[in-house]
């Protein structure tokens, strides 16, 4: 724990306690109240910057927002903190998963290809969501009228699914056999 200068050790501890227990960001005007205006803005900001630096190696950080200063958990620790929440993880819709499956198994494909296989229109939101996630991208354009974009999966897609290559995707042969026998 960094010690403040001799004449201000309490101030930093009080600031820290106030910021850790506040439900809202605290503006400098609020923080001044803590010390009955005995500290000016410059002194406060200096202490706040010291606090920021004290917390720089921690999972919680002191941030300055438009409405004031507040402590918050760092984004990279959210994966742990999320585990405390019983709420169910979000799920992709069937349309998204099928689109992703088509791109993964049949890449590179155009939107038209996907629509042909699924038999329904593909909403732009689906492709955008998968692109935003970094799982697919445009690898070229097919030389047909309209020059439709060709989509393929990315390395991030493989990484996020813990696959080293597309060859590790579950084989479809068995599935097709199942279908063949059930629809014989």
């Amino acid at each position, binding site marked *: 724990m960094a010690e403040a200068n001799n004449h201000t050790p309490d101030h930093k501890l009080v600031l820290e*306690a106030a910021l*850790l*227990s*506040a*439900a809202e960001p605290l503006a400098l005007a609020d923080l001044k109240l803590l010390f009955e205006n005995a500290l000016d803005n410059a002194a406060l900001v200096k202490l706040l910057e010291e606090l920021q630096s004290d917390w720089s190696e921690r999972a*919680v950080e002191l941030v300055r927002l438009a409405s004031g200063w507040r402590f*918050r*958990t760092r*984004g990279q620790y*959210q*994966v742990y*903190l*999320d585990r405390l929440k019983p709420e169910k*993880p*979000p*799920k*992709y819709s*069937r349309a998204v*998963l*099928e689109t*992703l*499956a*088509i791109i*993964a*198994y*049949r*890449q*590179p494909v155009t939107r038209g290809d996907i629509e042909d*296989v*699924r*038999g329904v229109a593909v909403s732009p939101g689906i492709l955008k969501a998968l692109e935003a*996630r970094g799982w697919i991208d*445009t*690898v*070229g*354009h*097919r*030389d*047909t009228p309209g*020059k439709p974009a*060709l989509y*393929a*999966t990315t390395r991030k897609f493989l990484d*996020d*699914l*813990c*696959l080293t*290559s*597309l*060859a*590790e*995707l*579950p*084989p*479809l042969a068995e*599935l*097709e056999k*199942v*279908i063949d026998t059930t*629809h014989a």
Partner: protein
Amino acid sequence: MNVAADLPVVARLYGEPLVKLPADLYIPPDALEIILDAFEGPLDLLLYLIRKANINILDIPMAPLTAQYLEYVEAMRRVNLDLAADYLAMAAMLLEIKSRLLLPRPSAVAEDDAQDPRAELVARLLEYERIKRAGQELDALPQATRNFEWTKVWFDAELVERLPDVIARDLQMAWLNILRQARNLRHHKVTREQLSVREYMGHLLRRLQAGKVLRFEDLFEVGAGAPEVVVNFLALLELARESLVLITQSEAFCPIYIALADGGSEQPYA
């Protein structure tokens, strides 16, 4: 038993704290309401009278206590205070106990079973006093938001959007769905293809982006191993079959050039 500490301020009279009630129980009529407010009920008032007079609670002289209590109640009635029923009920109880004490004592044989008529009252007074003190002690404990605050560090759920997890099996199941649909809608022949070829097709297209023209031999990594070279070559053939790349060679044994079929006219991902 320190009675004064027990009742630090029983009331405020004209803004002045009233630490003790008048010993003679004479109460200025306009102060009655305030004094009544100072007590939590008849038990509290009785307890005050007992403790003030330094009476042994286990041997309450019922006659003087009842007299004092009734004086209070009478004083309250004189100023037409809306006397709480609880105070009147207690008055009745005190009178009853007093009268039972006046009855001749039962014989020595029956004395074992005889109950002191005051027993129940004393038990109630003691229980009330205990609880009254317990209330004060609870109030003295450090209390959240009064004596300390919980930390409330901001956990910004929006900071990192939680995205759905997908495992490879989800894709397999999705594909199964597609197949079922396809079978149901039409006799669409969905054939199994070499995945790795598809993967290399993507790699090749990426490398050819931005209008790059690559030499055929540059497409192959030396030392990558025969299987990879073969797959890469198959990918190139597949791209050509799907008219995605142009393969040009001016004449035999000249360098073979590969370029995107769309000529790299669009370069959105340069």
